[in-house]
């Protein structure tokens, strides 16, 4: 954070590499990266990956340049920049870049780079100029850089490319005007080997899908309890939303004054707001897992799952992932509810339960064989048991939408839809000691 007086271009060049560090595509804007330097950086990167030193920054030993990268599928998207370039901006930008490529190519992987190098060059040309990020809204880019368009006519520039409201184009029309709001909360939890909660957190997202004509303004009001903290500058404020971030379309001034979210939505789906709570709710599901081995080739697991939420609520799509040794054979499994399969891809037993009410408890027991001529790769029991689930019609935090209004100068009436759901996001339980 010490850096205050220098704002460097965030990249000199961008490179897309395969996972074994072979260059697939490069674009150099500033001519500042000598080829030997790039070679050195890539060599060091390969060494780091080999020795599982995975720090996302590789510094050149003989110059001021650094290579910063994000892995995606089997690709490495890397950028070389002077060491004065702000790493926060670089990584934010690289992730945005990945987002753009993902939006363009159904899945962004080595093959899509080889097949689409022309489009990628074209995109890079528009997204960066001389090392500075330019247009990075996939939706707007999509307006004038198209994959398989028949382009005899020169495309014209979409107004949104330079608009003040850069996220929405003019002249959108829907027969039926609707706006959908999903309140999605994600809980994470880590319980240690003594059954003690070591970490627990709740984050939420308000995701909007707008199908609205013209240039509408939406107003969204949340229940008092939720928004109080945002205005209370004293550190001891006890609103439960610890931190909120907003999509650029939200008018922050109005929010500060009227406690109201006012925004002209982008067309389609976007995240309006995200938040995080400081004092998360009680655990929703608890797991007690133990592991024991009678001899070197047999391991037994005992797992119990209990739901701690209110009895009238229902959790659905519950899956418990119990890590096992990678060379397991012949699992013998018994469980009181649901189905269990051994999944060699994940090296885990997957215990699936469709719907369960609150205040219930279920048990599972499993015996596994492992070959005696094994090379012990990893001491079992270090990886925690993981649970995924969702509880619909409910927010764990208690956040509620008071109303959602749409105002448009044409005066059409629009239907607002609101849905709530709570999901797990890293619910982990270490094996009991």
């Amino acid at each position, binding site marked *: 954070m010490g850096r205050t007086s220098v*704002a460097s271009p965030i990249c000199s060049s961008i490179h897309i590499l395969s996972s074994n560090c072979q260059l697939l595509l490069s674009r150099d804007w500033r001519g500042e990266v000598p080829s030997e330097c790039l070679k050195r950086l890539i060599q060091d990167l390969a060494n780091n990956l080999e020795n599982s030193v995975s720090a996302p920054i590789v510094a050149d030993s003989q110059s001021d340049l650094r290579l910063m990268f994000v892995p995606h599928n089997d690709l490495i998207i890397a950028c070389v920049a002077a060491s004065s370039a702000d790493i926060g901006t670089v990584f934010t*930008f690289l992730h945005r870049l990945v987002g753009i490529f993902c939006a363009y190519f159904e899945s962004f992987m080595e093959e899509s780079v080889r097949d689409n190098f022309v489009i990628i060059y*074209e995109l890079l040309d528009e997204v960066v100029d001389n090392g500075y990020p330019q247009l990075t809204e996939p939706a707007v880019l999509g307006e004038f850089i198209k994959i398989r368009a028949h382009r005899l006519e020169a495309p014209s520039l979409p107004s949104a490319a330079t608009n003040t409201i850069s996220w929405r184009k003019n002249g959108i029309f829907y027969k039926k005007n609707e706006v959908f709001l999903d309140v999605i909360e994600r809980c994470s939890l880590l319980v240690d080997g003594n059954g*003690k909660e070591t970490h627990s957190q709740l984050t939420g997202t308000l995701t909007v899908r707008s199908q609205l004509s013209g240039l509408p303004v939406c107003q969204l009001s949340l229940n008092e309890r939720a928004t109080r903290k945002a205005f209370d500058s004293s550190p001891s404020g006890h609103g439960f939303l610890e931190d909120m971030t907003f999509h650029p379309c939200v008018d922050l001034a109005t929010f500060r004054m009227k406690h109201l979210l006012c925004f002209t939505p982008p067309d389609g789906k976007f995240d309006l707001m995200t938040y995080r709570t400081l004092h998360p709710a009680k655990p929703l599901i608890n797991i007690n897992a133990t592991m024991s081995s009678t001899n070197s080739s047999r391991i037994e697991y005992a797992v119990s799952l209990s739901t701690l939420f209110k009895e009238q609520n229902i959790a659905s799509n519950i899956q418990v992932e119990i890590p096992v040794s990678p060379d397991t054979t012949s699992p013998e499994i018994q469980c009181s509810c649901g189905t269990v399969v051994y999944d060699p891809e994940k090296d885990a037993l997957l215990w699936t339960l469709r719907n369960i009410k609150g205040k219930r408890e279920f048990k599972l027991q499993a015996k596994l064989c492992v070959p005696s001529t094994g090379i012990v790769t990893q001491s079992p029991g270090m990886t925690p048991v993981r649970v995924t689930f969702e509880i619909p019609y409910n927010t764990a935090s208690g956040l509620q939408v008071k109303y959602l209004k749409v105002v448009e100068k044409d005066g059409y009436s629009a239907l607002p839809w609101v849905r709530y759901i709570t999901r797990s996001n890293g619910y982990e339980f270490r094996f009991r000691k």
Partner: protein
Amino acid sequence: MSSHDSRYFSSHKKGEIAEWRQDLKRNDRDLLKTTVKRIIAAMTVGKDVCSLFPDVINCMQTEDIELKKLIYLYSINYARSNPDLAILAVNTFVKDSQDPNPLIRALAVRTMGCIRVDRIVEYLCDPLHLALRDSDPYVRKTAAICVAKLYSINRELVIDRGFLQQLNGLLLDDNPMVMANSIAALVEIQKGSCAQIIDSSLLSRVFTSLEACTEWGKVTILDCLAAYESTSATEAEHILESILPKLQHANYAVVLACIRVILSKLHQVQHLRESLLQRIVPPLITMLNAEPEIQYVALTSISEIMDAFVFPFLHSYKAFFCKYNDPSYVKHEKLNILVKITNENNVGDILLELKEYSGEVDIEFARKAIRSIGICALSVPEYSQGCVSALMCIIDTKVNYAVQEALVVLKDIFRCYPDRYESVISRLCQSLVSLDEPEAKKSFIWILGEYADRIENVIDLLRTFIDGVDDEPVVVQLQLLTSTVKLFLKRPSEESKSLVQQMLMFATHESEHPDLRDRAYVYWRLLSHGGDKVASVVTSHMPAPQCNPSS
């Protein structure tokens, strides 16, 4: 090797370049496009297709914008190696810079700026002047950046032709992207310095821009604000008031830039310090839910802030506990922070976590966790007992590297809290595994010397080391020398005397290491002439070391 190799596994066509050259000359639009694509593909995989330069440039005058873009891309790559031929392209560039389609005008200006051939620069000036005044903001924003490009190739030209004034004018442009790029260009022209872009009179204008600007532009403006030396506390407060909402921006880069502004102004607004610092914590903690690279950025920032202020983060210490699937660089950063944040209130929880990590498969990480336990013991004296017990548990596991790491750490605890934990020494001596790391050996040998009067078989233990002294690294030899001298002073006997002599002889006559020899000679002289003061110099208790968690 001889050419007959290609007989085997042959699937490759020969003479692609010649074939492409033919294809470029045919008047077939579709073929032309596929050919240029093939050439670019070859260029992408690092094949040298430079020799086609004149042929490709010949095709530049086309209506097909996709083809045009490809050829422009090609010319950027190879113009520098063909400056003479690059001139051929200039006409097309100049013509395109007057095209009715703004996309093409901008493309021409942008590409010309990328070519970086001194001789082309001359031709760039007129189109650039026009572009900077273009009616379309897309062209203007491209032109603004182009001024910076021009500056890096030929700065006199930029100054002489008045581009700087034009650029300054664009700072007031009502289009957000033009404005953002103009600022970026000016910053670059000032060698990356954000200072002096803004002065007091421009402030209110800057705040408006900050609102209107693109997210990346916001970062640049915020960085300029961070560099701006505000003239008074009131002004600083005003700036902070205006930028605070940006802490809630969805773009992490904007949030981080905003935090930088806050930190840069803290010294001017002492009375707001606490509350401002409280404000920056939540967004930083939120970033710990983002992609690992962003987490890394957040963690390094937090770590840096913590060097000055730990208090804002104290409540959030659990956010720095490691998840088992965190990438190792995130785990390492989290450990750095946990060590800094430990105090008497949270040490219990943190210690439990550290113990858990000490058994991880990632050995480097496990070691660091053990080291961190030691640091906790030193920084929270009230809890050192707990740390010592934890370390003893680790030693009981008999996992080789863990034991050695724990030994190193225990040695420091003994030094910092003399006469408190010596009771574990006998247990320690019993559960030792074979030591193979110099640091661990050094620590053990130090313990032998320091507690020579309490360890029953200390002479035997030291003798085994001395018998193999030849193969030890110098750091171990040095410690062995000191410990042997201490043993002799604490337990004078024929046996210990012969050990000292053996060690001194080795260090002065067999070793060629100047430092070890120096130390040995000093001890030797001291023992022969020092009289009764020797013991007080060599075996006296040293002051407890000051530990600084960051080092």
